[in-house]
């Protein structure tokens, strides 16, 4: 059996530390996901408005988010705000701000896509049956939007969870950061630790995202 460097995991509190790191990553992603979904639905509805100003603003926002790497945004918020405004944001708060900013834009675009993909005929045949505008939204448009949205937004959620690994760059102690610390600390005693520890990290991310992906796949089939 080759030395996978797994033994370091069972030294002291290492495993607990890694799981704690995963906890931080999940906490950041869950808060950001919750904010992104709520804000994204509102911004997405705004995007479908004919008003040129709301269009231009939302368009701009989306482009900025698309162009900027999340890492740059992260540095900008974490270090930039300290420099310019003298704020001292914690790493976790900065991460939540950046991921929500990003997630809201992506979510909004999904919501916009789902709303405009519902054919005008659906509105018209609902109207022809005597449904009011509110009833049409409630019984016809929203259920179809949500069905289209759920698989797509679950995809976004898994991407957001994965991307939280970036926060180690600003010193938030999450799973990858813990992993690096453990590897560093055990460099002499167990040189192969890097493999085992990163393998564990991989498995943890997998365990967090896999069920979500499965759910997305299931819903996609069911609601096709």
């Amino acid at each position: 059996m080759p030395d996978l460097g797994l033994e370091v995991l069972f030294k002291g509190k290492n495993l607990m530390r890694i799981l704690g790191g995963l906890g931080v990553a999940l906490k950041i992603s869950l808060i950001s996901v919750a904010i992104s979904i709520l804000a994204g639905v509102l911004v997405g509805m705004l995007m479908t408005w004919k008003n040129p100003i709301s269009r231009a603003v939302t368009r701009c926002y989306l482009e900025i988010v698309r162009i900027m790497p999340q890492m740059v945004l992260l540095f900008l918020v974490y270090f930039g705000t300290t420099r310019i405004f003298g704020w001292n944001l914690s790493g976790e708060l900065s991460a939540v701000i950046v991921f929500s900013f990003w997630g809201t834009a992506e979510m909004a675009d999904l919501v916009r896509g789902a709303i405009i993909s519902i054919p005008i005929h659906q509105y018209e045949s609902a109207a022809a049956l005597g449904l009011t505008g509110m009833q049409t939204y409630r019984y016809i448009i929203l259920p179809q939007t949500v069905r289209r949205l759920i698989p797509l937004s679950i995809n976004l959620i898994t991407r957001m969870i994965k991307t939280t690994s970036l926060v180690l760059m600003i010193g938030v102690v999450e799973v990858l950061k813990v992993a690096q610390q453990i590897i560093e600390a055990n460099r002499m005693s167990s040189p192969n630790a890097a493999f085992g520890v990163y393998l564990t990290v991989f498995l943890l991310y997998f365990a967090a995202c896999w069920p979500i992906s499965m759910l997305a796949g299931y819903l996609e089939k069911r609601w096709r």
Partner: protein
Amino acid sequence: MSEKVLEIEHLVKRFDDLTVLNDISLDVHEGEVIVVVGPSGCGKSTLLRCINALEEIQGGEIRLKGEAVSKKSRNLPEIRQKIGMVFQSYELFPHLNVLDNITLAPTKVQKRSREEAAEEALALLSRVGLQEKAGSFPRQLSGGQKQRVAIVRALCMHPEILLFDEVTAALDPEMVREVLDVILGLAEQGKTMIIVTHEMQFARAVADKVIFLDEGVIKEEGDPDQFFDHPKTERAKEFLRTFTFERKHSHS
């Protein structure tokens, strides 16, 4: 003569500067079946959409049992309940099964009980030969089946008048018949209907009165046999010729 269900007076409909309907007047009586024919783009769909107030009108008046139909009416949803419409493209609600498609409006709009609405829906479905499809979703149905469901959905609201806009135009030829038979059955039951169609044989069989619409005006109206056998206007003759095929024999 029986009671007037629908009155259209001097209807004018424009899209920007394009006048699509230019001073149309038409009365539809209880139990009457009106078939509207005319070349593509002459405004047949627009006429039906105006009757259902899906389009704003620029002049004239439309009344259903004396009540004005207009996009601005505050009780528009109530008026529309009395006007059943079936469109060319199947527009069932894809997230609801057949039964729920049919009972949604009766229960949510007319506040009828779910049991009563479902019972009627099933009875109507079996009349069009689809009782075993009640639990199916629209994507599991053929085009002809979808259109029959759409007709049942409109019927279940007990409308005063039914509007059909080329309901067979998007169907494969072998499915046209099953849908037209349903509409013929409705005519026999004495339903009041306005039917837009390109199926001339069917038009002749079902119509009490044929309207020939061309360039936004009613060019000809009258008895179906009269219209199809002896059209009065040159435009109508030309239009009817597009449905007959002749082989030009050339002997050299």
